[in-house]
């Protein structure tokens, strides 16, 4: 059977419970928002194939349950992830503070060259904001990763976030392939 894509990227959404991971994923995969969503138990994934510079890229995006104690189960799924979206809620200070714990968690369980990106979600709730955009940017710089504020509800920059992450993974991968070819020739 012919492949319907050129690359398959496995991505992961992590962050505290309630920051909107499932909604962000739903916005990206179905372009919809649903206020009656149920909380995630265990693990699930969604698929969307995108076009990137003439290549078909199949994104397999894994959604996890956020609560601390389920991590022993969810980290089993970190293996093989090529990109990770770290999500916090701009109206929830605690979820932002926890990002550094999540990064530690990734360092322990995922491959070290995994591409990471920081998302500050629910950005349309300006009146409830607890975490300024500057602090988000600052943290991203600290970890050397990209940062975008999104809203799953108002459909703000969700698409852009996933495309950016996918493009970075693709670039890294192609660079790697080229260096392989180079090494093989000489």
């Amino acid at each position, binding site marked *: 059977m012919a492949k319907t894509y050129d690359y398959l990227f496995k991505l992961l959404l992590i962050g505290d419970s309630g920051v909107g991971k499932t909604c962000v994923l739903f916005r990206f995969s179905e372009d919809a928002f649903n206020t009656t969503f149920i*909380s995630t138990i265990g693990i699930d994934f969604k*698929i969307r194939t995108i076009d990137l510079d003439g290549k078909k890229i199949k994104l397999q995006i894994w959604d996890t349950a956020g*609560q601390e*104690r389920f991590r022993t189960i969810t980290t089993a799924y970190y*293996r093989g992830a*090529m990109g990770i979206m770290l999500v916090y809620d701009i109206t929830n200070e605690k979820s932002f503070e926890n990002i550094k714990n999540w990064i530690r968690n990734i360092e322990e369980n995922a491959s070290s060259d995994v591409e990471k990106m920081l998302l500050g979600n629910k950005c349309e709730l300006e009146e409830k904001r607890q975490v300024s955009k500057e602090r988000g940017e600052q943290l991203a710089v600290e970890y050397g990763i990209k940062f975008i504020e999104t809203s799953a509800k108002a459909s703000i920059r969700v698409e852009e976030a996933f495309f950016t992450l996918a493009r970075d993974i693709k670039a890294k991968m192609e660079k790697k392939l080229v260096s392989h070819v180079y090494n093989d020739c000489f």
Partner: protein
Amino acid sequence: MEESAEESMDLCCQDGVLLTSAPAAYMNYINTVGTLFIVEYLNSNRTRCIEWKPNDVTIDSEMQDQEWAMVNTVERRTRTFSETCSRSKYLKVNMIEVKSFRVSRNKQKLAFMDGKGESLCNFLFQHSNCDLLLATLKGILRTAPSRRDKHLHIILDDLQNPETQQLNKSFAELNLFQDPSDYVWGFVRNFHNKPYETAMEAFAKITDIVYRGPEHRIMDDEVHDILNRSLEAIENSTTTHTHDEYEVIAHVPKLPDRKDYPRGRPLSADQWKGLKDPEGRVEDVESVKLMIFRGGISPEIRKEVWKYLLDYYIWDNTNTQRQNLIKQRHDEYNVMKLQWRSMTHIQEDNFSDYRERKSLIEKDVKRTDRTIDYFEGDQNPNVLVLYDILMTYVMYNFDLGYVQGMSDLLSPILYLLDNEVDAFWCFVGFMNKVSSNFDMDQAGMKEQLQHLNMLLAFVEPELANYLKKHESGNMFFCFRWLLVWFKREFNMEDIMRLWEVLWTGLPCQNFHLLICIAILETEKEILMENNYGFCEILKHINDLSGNIDVATILSKAEGMYHQIIEADHLTDSVRLIIGLPILGNTVMIDSKEASPDISELASSSQGADGEEVCYERAISNSFL
């Protein structure tokens, strides 16, 4: 009328037989008790019929439970005209139409089928079994058990009815043996003991003639069927493993055949009333539980019975004692509720563990069953009750606090009871049964996943093996099922039924794991035939939600339970899981030995194994 005027005799007659299925004309009699006959008409054809007549007197329902039925074998007594004239309203099936019959449920169920395998009429023997009837049938018919279903008996011939001798004829045409039908059936029987030898010895002969015979033969369908079934049997009794270059054919120890355990009727309001003494004590708790296990609870008494099953009410309390208990529990609840309600902002600011639990609950009640009427819409007061109960539970058991999944366990309880205090205490009872699901270190969940894997390896070794080879031996794809007891897989009505059955604790410890296995077995073919890998297995299992039939799965799981306990090779590790006493002759559970996948993942913080490999593999993987 002509026929009924004929003289006839009863070859056999049995009382206390419930008609459970019949042609449309007899619809009114379904679930009526009556008498079953085998009658022979003394006409030239010697027509034989299965006949059933409803009892004239309606029997008090309480009487039915007693062993009062009598069985009489009426020795070929000749009927007179006057006795038979009223027979036109009987259910009557000519034996010529009957091509097979099926005996099940401890020989209490008997079903007659036509040539297409469709049901003609079914009976339930309420007070005894159908032995007598079977003996009579075997006296007048030649039958053979079906290979595929040992409860099914195929009628080979009725010597006095030339029309029914087709099969004999087709065998005779093969011209192989003196009594061909006997040979074939003997052959099929032998299969059971020595499948391989029997087949090899005989197949060359038979297939040669049937398939490549000199003349073109039209084979009777049934002969065809027998041969096909025999071939299937060979395939089923052996499993092929590919090991390096060799093909190893291993014999897998088989479980006894699965019996049919149809679901019973729900515990009814009348039954429940009858089970209480005048002072309101429920005396025979074991019987109550057994009835609930077999059929669940009728909706009109569910509200009350759940309080017992969830250890809020106490079975042997009198009405007065219960009233006191209720009052006491109300007071206790209000005290605990006041504790968090009266917390000041400063207290809260200085109490991060409390804040964390509170914020999780706030987020989760907004995401719990919001599509059902009871919790639907903005500002729904029931969502607030859900919140209050969970917050009060935090004060009741602060160490456990709130863990995601708990709101799912509470929601059906509140939905049914529609009362805050009652729902709280019932939720406490439920949590006491499943609190290990929410351990901080998830030890309880890991243990269950491991036990599930071990049970699966015993009941469905082929599937267990398949999962292991497809990175799914850790059974993580069943995590959601176990964490919230299948709450996400069924609608409200079905989850209530499933939970009340599971709460009885019958028929064994960890019966919920057999529910998992029953569902997995149902999906086995799809998983394996599509060669699903790790991701597809998870997806397929997650997508089953809303498509599982609760009654079917319960019957199946019950059948599996009996297969397990009757298995000759039942191991101590399996005995431990289902709570049977161990015999001490097999290895004890050793988590590392038993399931390497799980112990490996349990300590999964050692970093990714060869990131390069993972990376490359992910790129080249072509799943989905």
